[in-house]
């Protein structure tokens, strides 16, 4: 499927369209406003303010309609700076189409450039060179949004060798031939300023790309180091925990001290331990849904011969919990399931509700029930009662037999990565 003839560094019409349309239409949420991008946007806003001031204070007051031109340029600069200002405050405008953005920005840029040359003719146009830095920053942000490794030096050299550029040189020579030195004194500064501006924008883009690539490389190294460490840790865990448990089962079988049922029980316990370890990894990853959180305990009850009479529905179980809420909920599920199994329950059901910042975990069983006052000190249930808020554990007898224990747990839903409210 790959197109072999396409040169990724080629500066084509597509590249012009992408850069002139700016970063806004390409935003799809992958690249959030990090501090670096916000700083760049702030610099852009500052430069636009400086450019506007330069036009107002250094303008050629002999020019007819100069006030209308400077006001036009100011309006164009203000509109161009709307997106950078929003970026500084981490606000995104609605992603417009490429065509709309392209037309609007090209018109605004043309107004700014023509007004600048009219207000500051000749070599004085160079006073607005900082605006080219803002353009370079703009190109850098667009490349970043598109996932584009910018190659500004290559692009600039391609431009210099392009037919368009040779056409411009031809026009300068023709002007000299037709209009003589007087016309040339107008055209040469214009041509030189064009190159100074382009070189400034290209230099800015090159500097920012170099910095960006270096920071990406540094980040990749850091990530690789963390991944390597994690792998070593898991390798250690696999060896240490899994091998020890397998060895235990092996020895039990070799010494002939265990029945088949006991070995099956040991392996079921091992399976449960592995699931708890998996759950612990999910806690670490910061993303646990109630469905995944309850699974090990439902399976544990099932493997211990209990019949599962009810489980939470998809909607209730789809709630994602923050790590703190999830760990407390898991402890409650663990303690209450073990409590039911130890009391000889043969039927257990699980239910979950969330309301007003609390998660209600209800575990009902057909066991004999218990009183909170009789819970022995230091046991799992006793610790759980003390870790929950007062009244966090209630026991409700079921009229037909059995008990429902409800644990009330303060909960916060985990924010999805990249879904920070300020960034929506």
């Amino acid at each position, binding site marked *: 499927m790959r*197109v072999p003839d396409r040169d990724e560094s080629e500066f084509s019409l*597509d590249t012009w369209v992408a850069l002139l349309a700016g970063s806004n239409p390409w935003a*799809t949420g*992958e690249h959030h406003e990090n501090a670096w991008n916000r700083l760049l946007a702030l610099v852009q806003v500052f430069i636009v303010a400086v450019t506007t001031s330069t036009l107002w204070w250094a303008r050629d007051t002999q020019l007819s309609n100069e006030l209308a031109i400077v006001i036009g340029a100011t309006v164009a600069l203000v509109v161009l700076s709307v997106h950078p200002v929003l970026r500084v405050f981490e606000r995104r405008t609605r992603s417009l189409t*490429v065509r709309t953005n392209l037309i609007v920005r090209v018109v605004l840029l043309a107004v700014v450039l023509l007004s600048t040359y009219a207000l500051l003719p000749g070599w004085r146009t160079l006073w607005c060179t900082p605006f080219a830095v803002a353009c370079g920053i703009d190109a850098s942000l667009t490349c970043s949004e598109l996932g*584009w490794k910018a190659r500004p030096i290559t692009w600039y050299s391609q431009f210099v060798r392009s037919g368009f550029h040779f056409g411009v040189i031809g026009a300068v020579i023709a002007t000299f031939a037709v209009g003589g030195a007087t016309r040339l004194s107008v055209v040469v500064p214009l041509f030189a300023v064009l190159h100074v501006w382009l070189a400034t924008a290209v230099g800015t883009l090159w500097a920012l790309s170099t910095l960006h690539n270096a920071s990406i490389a540094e980040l990749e190294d850091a990530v690789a180091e963390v991944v390597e460490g994690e792998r070593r840790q898991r390798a250690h865990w696999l060896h240490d925990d899994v091998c020890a448990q397998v060895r235990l089962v092996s020895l039990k079988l070799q010494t002939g001290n265990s029945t088949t049922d006991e070995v099956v029980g040991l392996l079921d316990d091992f*399976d449960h331990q592995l699931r708890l370890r998996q759950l612990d990894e999910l806690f670490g990853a910061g993303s646990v*849904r109630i*469905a995944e959180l309850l699974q090990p305990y439902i399976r544990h009850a099932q493997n211990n011969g209990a019949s599962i009479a009810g489980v939470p529905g998809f909607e209730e179980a789809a709630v994602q919990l923050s790590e703190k809420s999830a760990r407390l909920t898991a402890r409650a599920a663990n303690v209450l399931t073990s409590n039911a199994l130890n009391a000889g329950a043969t039927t257990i059901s699980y239910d979950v509700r969330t309301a007003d910042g609390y998660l209600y975990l209800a575990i009902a069983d057909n066991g004999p029930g218990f009183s909170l006052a009789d819970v022995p000190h230091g046991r799992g249930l006793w610790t759980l009662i003390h870790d929950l808020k007062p009244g966090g554990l209630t026991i409700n007898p079921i009229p037909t037999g059995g008990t429902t224990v409800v644990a009330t747990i303060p909960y916060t839903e985990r924010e999805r990565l990249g879904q920070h409210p300020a960034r929506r």
Partner: protein
Amino acid sequence: MANILLVDDAAALAELFGRAIEHELGHTVHTVVSLSEVAASLALVGDLDLALVDLSFPQEDGTGLEALVRIHQHSRATKLAIITQGDEWVAEILRDAWELLPITTVISKSAPLAYQLQAIATVLAVGWAAPDPAIQPLLPTKRDTTRTAERFSRLVQHAGHAKLWVSLVAVDDASYKAMADHSGLKLNTLKNYRAQLVDELETHGLHDPTLRDMRRFAKRCWPFLEPYINAAQQGRG
């Protein structure tokens, strides 16, 4: 006596489980341990009454969805069932299978053997069995009737959309630039194609998705997208 196909990459476990089904329930079980072998085995084993398919194939570039779709395309009469760990890793694949295919039950790999065999017997007898309770919370209570396998055709309306999906799953970095380089399409064209698909992606639970979200979705649901991508590409040719 029923004819059952068991698709699971855990070869030793599949072998033993297959034997248990044969011994306890008296059915014939054909075991396949690789996704790439499914097509060939379908031609060999004759009419199937039930296919039991695992969802996770970490050593292969695909999931159990691929096998389920292939078996369903081969014969609509074959009942489809899933046997899985049902953990977080497969939760989205499980939901896709549940919503897009006529899954008759979901069996937990960790459930007691008797429970697993009972589920198989019930499916063969009455055509359906309640999913394992440990897995049930991962399945929507009601199947979304608007989300169907046929509806994936709306995500590939022409060859340009096909190019978008192909490039999206092929590139390392989900960015317009990488996709444009891969597909030969212009950046603006890709942007427009994505915009055309955003509303339809809502049906599949993707709300204004990022390119990365779309890539994850495409990789997961590739068995459902692929026929329409092939058709669009052939239509263009």
